[in-house]
């Protein structure tokens, strides 16, 4: 009688106030059957990782439109490492220039989703990546 659900944390690190994309993704993933924990704006990397651990999520999704994606993502990755939680799947969305995608992946980001990404793409990627 197994009852598993994939749990996803959607968070916006830094001072970036662009919330639409994160909300669209949060609602969209809910409608795709995921349990989505939405923590809102202006979260520090420490807060994001602490929430992810308490909620025991399978996935962390960062939404960044401020241009600070490289440094913010690096901080989240460092936090995850220091908590020995690198097994959590990390994805990033927002305004990410093409040339930065490789750097993000090198840090350990599994997927990058820029403007115009469909929720179904994101949902599909998560389902495939998280062994259930």
């Amino acid at each position, binding site marked *: 009688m197994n009852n598993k659900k994939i749990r996803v944390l959607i968070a916006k690190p830094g001072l970036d106030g662009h919330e639409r994309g994160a909300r669209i993704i949060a609602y969209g993933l809910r409608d795709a059957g995921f349990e989505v924990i939405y923590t809102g704006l202006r979260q520090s990397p420490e807060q994001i990782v602490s*929430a992810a651990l308490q909620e025991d999520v399978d996935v962390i999704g960062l939404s960044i439109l401020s241009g600070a994606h490289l440094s913010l993502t690096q901080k989240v990755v460092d936090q995850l490492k220091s908590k020995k939680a690198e097994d959590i799947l990390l994805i990033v969305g927002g305004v990410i220039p093409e040339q930065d995608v490789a750097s993000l992946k090198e840090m350990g980001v599994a997927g990058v989703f820029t403007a115009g990404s469909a929720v179904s793409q994101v949902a599909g990627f998560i389902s495939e990546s998280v062994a259930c």
Partner: protein
Amino acid sequence: MQASWETLLDGVKKGNERSLARIITLVENRENGWKDAMKRLYPLGGKAKIIGVTGSPGAGKSTLTNSIARELVSRGRTVGIIAVDPSSPFSGGALLGDRLRMRDAVNLPEIFIRSMATRGALGGLCQGARDVSRILDAFGKDVILIETVGVGQDEVEVVKTADLVMVVCVPGQGDGIQALKAGIMEIADLYVVNKADREGAHEVAADIGGMLDIASEGSGPRPPILKTSAINYQGVRELVDVLVHGFDAGKNRADWRALRIKEEILSLMESEILHYLQDKWDRTGDLDKAIHQILKQQTDPYSAADSLLPLMREAFGIKETT
């Protein structure tokens, strides 16, 4: 990655938050061995006080839960928060956004917050929340706050597992009495009129008082009614005073506890039996067959249930005449 139950139980005993978080997941998912784990955790707890926080969406339950937790921590208590939100009946997914309003609680190391979806479980939510609060209790949290939207029967059931139930109302909802609908009134130990920074808080409090007086016909003390402004932390200290006082009174009476234990055993049995039968029917197809027959108007749900009964008797080795 999938640490064993043994390791996780050990972690919980040692105060490891990750073990706590993972054990909650496994129990919530009903992974093999969950009940054995709960058997081991049960005797470790029993000390925590459990407070249910319920009320309409937007009343300020999360904000208030945050302020209460912060105040409790400042008084030297550790706190666990369980924030329950409904699963979508269509997709099975859920949007759990209560952390958004728990700005202080998310930063305090004495507080552990867990968001839970109702998962539309068969008699399950109540038990699920009860399990998680037991795990938090075993982990050593002094007070556990369970936030649920007070709209459906499920949610009312959840707060029944609490030692103290607080109903949150707000001014300007047109009908301040709406929250006092049947079911909620019987379980409320205290009422909080939140958003008292807005106009109309006194009127709502007076309305509730009037309703309670009519209901109790003057017999016995009526539950207290407090006013708060959770975003400004106003009235929260007084509220926590009342809560801490209430810990020692009311529902901790032995007869009330016995009733709760009885309900819990029955609900555990109920979900076991249902799962067992569903499992069996999934394999035999008997249930699907019955559904089809009803759809084709060849029989009715009552007869179908009757004809399925012998299968259940057989499964449990029960003689025909009971």
